């Protein structure tokens, strides 16, 4: 992959694309509905996605429009939901699964990692698994240790899966539309704190290619790389740093697999400094992978050691007093950046 989309750039010319302000959840729903209207092979299944509309409301109204055959409310059986979706995908359907909380992907690991991810490789071109697994990740709502996790790093370790994590309503629609056109299993990571956010979303067939990061802010001093909710946190941190005289560049990865390493490397070669930011625990995380890529390919451009900002290596505590201490904060990003310039300033 080469070249991040620059701030504000769209797949289709803006002049031809009417914009509306939608929330993140509405943008996701629009992508789902467009796909279901376009392609009878697309159907959705998951827990409480029918009358109830899904735990975070993304599928509300779908049952009325598409009926119970295509909006399939399932028993609480995550492993078999994903397994059945894999079997349906292998035989010509394009299922979209909602897993109510990302933490519950633990129950689907065999089907995702051993089967869905590997069929194409093991069976060759005769096999396709066009399937999207949507799931909300992240903390910040005091849901405790089993309903707050960001587990996306695990899935980067499984060749054959794609992993996507949008941060804006426009990308929510664009990436989901692209995922729905993809012939591979795509893990689509949403974020609980983003569903209510609003933003301009292009109408019509808006696709954001998988594997293409977005440059959210240009800067010359330090590169901040993040995704999902923390892309916004990184952007806010960059504004705070600007006031302190540090000009940060912000990259929103949007896709974790495939990873847009070209955009990361180009930025680091320019700024000479890198902070990787993620919500999951630091050990073995997405940031570790990015740091390794930069060490391998751009070591000579680095003016300071790569830094990581992530959750501390503990389960996520419930108490409103403790949760913020476990999860990364904007202030952590700002402090880390200032430390990188401590000698200079």
């Amino acid at each position, binding site marked *: 992959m080469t070249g991040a989309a620059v701030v504000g750039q769209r797949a289709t010319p803006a002049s031809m694309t009417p914009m509306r302000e939608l929330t993140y959840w509405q943008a996701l729903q629009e992508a789902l509905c467009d796909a279901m209207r376009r392609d009878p092979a697309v*159907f959705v299944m998951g827990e409480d996605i029918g009358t109830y509309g899904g735990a975070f409301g993304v599928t509300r109204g779908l049952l009325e429009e598409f009926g119970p055959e295509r909006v399939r409310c399932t028993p609480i059986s995550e492993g078999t939901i994903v397994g059945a979706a894999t*079997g349906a995908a*292998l*035989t010509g359907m394009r299922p979209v699964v909602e897993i109510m909380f990302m933490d519950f992907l633990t129950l689907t690991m065999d089907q995702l990692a051993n*089967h869905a991810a590997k069929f194409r490789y093991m*069976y060759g071109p005769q096999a396709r698994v066009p399937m999207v697994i949507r799931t909300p990740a992240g903390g910040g709502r005091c849901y405790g240790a089993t309903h707050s996790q960001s587990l996306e790093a695990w899935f980067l370790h499984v060749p054959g899966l794609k992993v996507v994590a949008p941060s804006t309503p426009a990308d929510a629609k664009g990436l989901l539309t692209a995922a729905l056109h993809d012939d591979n299993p795509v893990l689509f990571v949403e974020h609980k704190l983003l569903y209510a956010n609003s933003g301009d979303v292009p109408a019509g067939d808006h696709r954001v290619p998988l594997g293409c990061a977005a440059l959210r802010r240009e800067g010359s001093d330090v590169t901040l790389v993040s995704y999902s909710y923390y892309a916004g946190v990184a952007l806010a941190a960059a504004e705070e740093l600007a006031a302190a005289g540090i000009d940060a560049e912000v990259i929103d990865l949007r896709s974790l697999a495939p990873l847009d390493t070209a955009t990361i490397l180009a930025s680091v070669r320019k700024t000479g400094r890198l902070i990787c930011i993620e919500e999951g625990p630091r050990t073995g995380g997405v940031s570790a992978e990015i740091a390794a890529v930069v060490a391998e390919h751009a070591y000579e451009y680095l003016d300071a050691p790569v830094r990581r900002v992530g959750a501390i290596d503990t389960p996520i505590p419930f108490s409103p007093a403790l949760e913020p201490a476990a999860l990364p904060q904007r202030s952590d990003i700002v402090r880390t950046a200032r430390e990188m310039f401590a000698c200079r300033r």
Partner: protein
Amino acid sequence: MQLTYERVLGAYRTMRMIRSFEEKLVELVNLGKMSGFLHVYLGEEAVAAGVCAQLGEHDYVASTHRGHGHAIAKGVDVRGMMAELFGRRTGTCKGKGGSMHIADIDKGMLGANGIVGAGIPLATGAALTAKLKKTGGVAVAFFGDGASNQGAFHESLNLASIWKLPAVYVVENNGWGEFTPTDYVVPVKDIAERARSYAMPALIADGMDFFDVFAKAGEAIARARSGGGPTLLECKTYRFAGHYVGDALAYRPKDEAEKWMTERDPLRGFAERVLSDGLLNQDDLQRVDGEVSRHIEDAVKAAEAAPFPDASEVTTDVYADSHRRG
């Protein structure tokens, strides 16, 4: 489905093909000519043959680590399978699947499967495809007694029952879950009893008798095809060989195996039945034996002569290139 002369002959050919194919595999492994982790189906041939004789090309099966028999019975080309087991480019899966991952999607064979019980949800999903696309197709999950202790089994039977999916769950109860006797790990006498929890009809067949399996599978498949929902079909069978090729079998009483092999061999039972009923004659059987034997020898020769995959193949097909749709 009526058992015409051609169908009876075809059933014998299927069972003989499975038997001879796997006897050849054991020989090749023992000679050091074939590598990999192989689990053979010897002794259980009547189950795959009996069930698949009721299926068409538009029906699906999902299989197990002991999957050669299901693949052969579902019509997968034996030459391709042999080449696959030799790791050749001409194999069913270009040599990248191996014994536990042979699939032929066009033939409705959704794959052998290296994880116990994992094929059950896959077949359930294939049944969902048949229902949504209204193809009239049926999906069959083959699995062992051991898999009936996996969550995937229980979740899938429940899901198929509430959605009335056109699925048949065929449990091949061979008395042994890997190296542990089934009655130690399964508290019910018949695994078929487990269907009751899911308000699902259940049948028990003599898995060493093609005709019994054929009849009971026919009932279950007809119910599924006509919208009557899923069935759990338990086939009582026996694994003549060990869990894997090379298993020394120290854990299993010798006389138990000998009794099954001398008294209940499904091929011998089939031959006796068709001869006494006048369905086939001795010439028919001998002709099939000869054809199968030559076919397998040819398959081995072709596989051994076939090229290995090019080293560049190691990075192909990790992902499908998505075609542009819509």
